[in-house]
């Protein structure tokens, strides 16, 4: 924990937390938010299509949005990592933060699993989406929205 404390107390971390400049904390939070929106939004749209919303739209072309999802996820993960190290010891003791990280990991794993299973070239649009894929899509929506909710609760603990 000492190394985390030394990072928190370093000049850049103090600047990040205390500078009134919009280029520090605000910009990181902004990047974190844009990344969130373009990760969760398209993921949930794909999940809802798997669950039967917009059934007439072919599913296969949605595959192209996974690129968008992972770029956005990388933006959120990178900005989130910097935000974490500026306040690591408090975050590690914050139950909402730990719940959020758990849900993000599960949601990301489900997203990978959905891509592998539902978007296999031969399987897409060949027939109705299987029941287990629907469960994964529903779980994905719950985990992403749960992660957002837990993220908002960080400030309340």
């Amino acid at each position, binding site marked *: 924990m000492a190394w985390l404390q030394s990072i928190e107390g370093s000049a850049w971390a103090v600047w990040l937390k205390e500078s009134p400049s919009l280029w520090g*904390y605000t910009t990181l939070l*902004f990047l974190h*938010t844009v990344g969130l*929106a373009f990760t*969760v*939004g398209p993921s949930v*749209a794909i999940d*809802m299509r798997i669950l039967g919303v*917009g059934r007439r739209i072919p599913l296969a072309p949605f595959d192209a949005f996974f690129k968008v999802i992972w770029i956005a996820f990388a933006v959120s993960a990178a900005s989130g990592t910097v935000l974490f190290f500026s306040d690591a010891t408090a975050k590690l003791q914050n139950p909402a933060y730990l719940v959020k990280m758990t849900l993000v990991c599960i949601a990301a794993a489900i997203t990978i699993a959905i891509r592998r299973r539902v978007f296999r070239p031969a399987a897409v649009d060949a027939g109705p989406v299987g029941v287990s894929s629907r469960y994964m899509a529903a779980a994905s929506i719950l985990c992403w929205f749960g992660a*957002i909710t837990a993220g908002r609760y960080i400030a309340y603990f």
Partner: protein
Amino acid sequence: MIASWILPVCESLHFIGMAMLIGFAGILDLRLLGVARRLPVAPLQRLMPWALLGFALSLGSGVVFIAANPGQYVGPPLSLSFVAKMFFILLGCLNAFLYYVSGLKRAADGVEAGEDAPSAVKVSAAVSLVLWVTVMYWGRVLQFFGKSF
């Protein structure tokens, strides 16, 4: 005074609504700009009520923030980042409204799988993406001046 559980619940709904707006309107904009070109546009546009639902969630929860803590938004002094955010929300709504009434939406309905959208439609889609991301920026600035996250 409102119950203490209401604000975090509304904050969560505010962000979930934002994600849904970007999820549905954003993927339409990206498709019109050429991502996932194999998607036919017409059935995708029929999903826009879901984007509207997301917008309504964010709007409704946002009204609660103002009711709970008017000083942070309307002051005095009036928060400039709040004004900027509202301004860009209005522009975003105006852009969407014009898209529907100007015939651009109907033109986009004719864009089949694999086809490129007309340039006017692409401009509208790009403006939409830029405006909603700008709204997010001012929302974050607004919160920064109010309290730390």
